[in-house]
């Protein structure tokens, strides 16, 4: 079950424009074919500390987000995109943390910290529904 949101840090800003796009990169191992992308693309892994990394569509296009990811030495097969509204519909929020120390350009995160850590089922449900929203939109960038 979701718990209360944690307070934001000083330099973090809640994203409130429901139409804002949030670009997420798909790791090569999370794709078997063009239309079989793993739902794990939208599940935070141990790097994320339950903060799913995305780039803000108001600042970068899907292609620019892909390129920025690569410039950090990270692999991606392309960009999948959800919106702030879709994140909000699942009881989560999107946070702009691009002003914090060491944050990549135009970075933001989908805040899974409101999901109880033990509630694996809910993490997977949210990831599955974000994945469905993204697939309905299709790849927003494939090199």
């Amino acid at each position, binding site marked *: 079950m979701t718990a209360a949101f944690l307070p934001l840090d000083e330099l973090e800003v809640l994203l409130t424009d429901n139409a804002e796009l949030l670009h997420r990169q798909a790791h090569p191992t999370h794709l078997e074919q063009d239309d079989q992308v793993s*739902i794990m693309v939208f599940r935070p892994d141990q790097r994320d500390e339950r903060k799913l990394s995305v780039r803000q569509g108001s600042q970068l296009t899907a292609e620019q987000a892909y390129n920025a990811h690569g410039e950090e030495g990270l692999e991606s*097969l392309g960009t999948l995109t959800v919106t702030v509204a879709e994140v909000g519909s699942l009881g989560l929020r999107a946070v702009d943390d691009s002003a914090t120390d060491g944050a990549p350009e135009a970075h933001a995160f989908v805040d899974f910290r409101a999901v109880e850590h033990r509630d694996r089922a809910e993490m997977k449900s949210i990831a599955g529904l974000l994945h469905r929203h993204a697939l309905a939109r299709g790849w927003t960038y494939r090199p």
Partner: protein
Amino acid sequence: MTAVGGDVRQNEAMAMAQDFARLRFAGGRFDHGTGLHADVLEEVTTYKRILTELAKVVFRRENSGRVRVPKGFEDRLDLRLVDVEAGSQIPVLDRIAASGELLVPEDEYDRAQDLFTQIIDAAFTPTDIPRDLMAVVPMFSKFGTSLRAGEWIGVPNSRNDEVRYDRTTRARLIEASGEPYRADAELLGWVSDLNAQAGRFELRLADGSATPTGEYGRHWNEFHRAVGPTPEEGRRVRVAGYVEFSARGEARKFLTVDSVAVLDTWEWATERIEELQTLPPGWLGNDAGAAISLEAATAMMTLIDRLELDAVAKPPPIFPTGEGGVQAEWVFPVLTVSVESDSDGSFFCHRVGRTLDSADSLDVPAGHAADAADWLAKALGPAS
């Protein structure tokens, strides 16, 4: 070359363990102070990884070009750091036999040590490196990354003669691997194009890394059998042949096609899981992404074997999880079903429909694949 010592232990008790290798870290920091420098551990890990790939080359050479190694092949190289000898820094690696087995006096891994030193010896004359070793040469970019000027690693061959590997050697091997290369390979994927007029096929690789092309020659029937209305509706194939790779290791084209196997679901799942087991630790980047555990792989194969997939749903794509497990997924327009085998072999089954409220899940302990299969059959039933 310099002998660095080390004998195979002879008595029966010692046949469970073998004095396998001494890597000498010398020069610079390694000639001063006590204790093992932490950087050495990473180099030892990479040494083992390269040696494993070279042992596969030995196996292929000695088994008429068979591309796939036997199940459990990689597990046969169980190295333990048992000592650090004085005089520079020399981690002593013993090889341990698998449970219930004894080590044979010499096998592919011992002979792989000779290929390791052969590659190093040929760093300045890369044309001397046999073509089946070129696929392994790019891995040397990860070996010796911690070496500073004046430092070197003495790498032993199977006779414990040592060759010197330093920053210059590494740079030359990286340079040598910067060219496209050709190698025997077996690639897994879907037939994304089959052109009878041109006599050519295109293979979309299962890992999404490339779409090599080639002439189908006498294999028209097999390719044609694998083609579906769309690539994703076709059947997976395993194509073995002589392949040209880019410098980055991407398959470009088949120069020859030796065999084409159209795979059923079980074969596919097995091959996919075995492929995922080759992912090195840190595969997600930034040191994240644990290697797939044997328990997780075995559990998923057991589960897939129990599922009557053709009866309940389409075969699932299988993905690695960042925590050392694997996950099979079925995604439909308003239903997403997944089963994850965790690194300890337990399962987590999950489904979600239109909304969060529609979700359902089940924890299944290790060794109870039948329970996970039953749950999945019910979860997938309405979708099939």
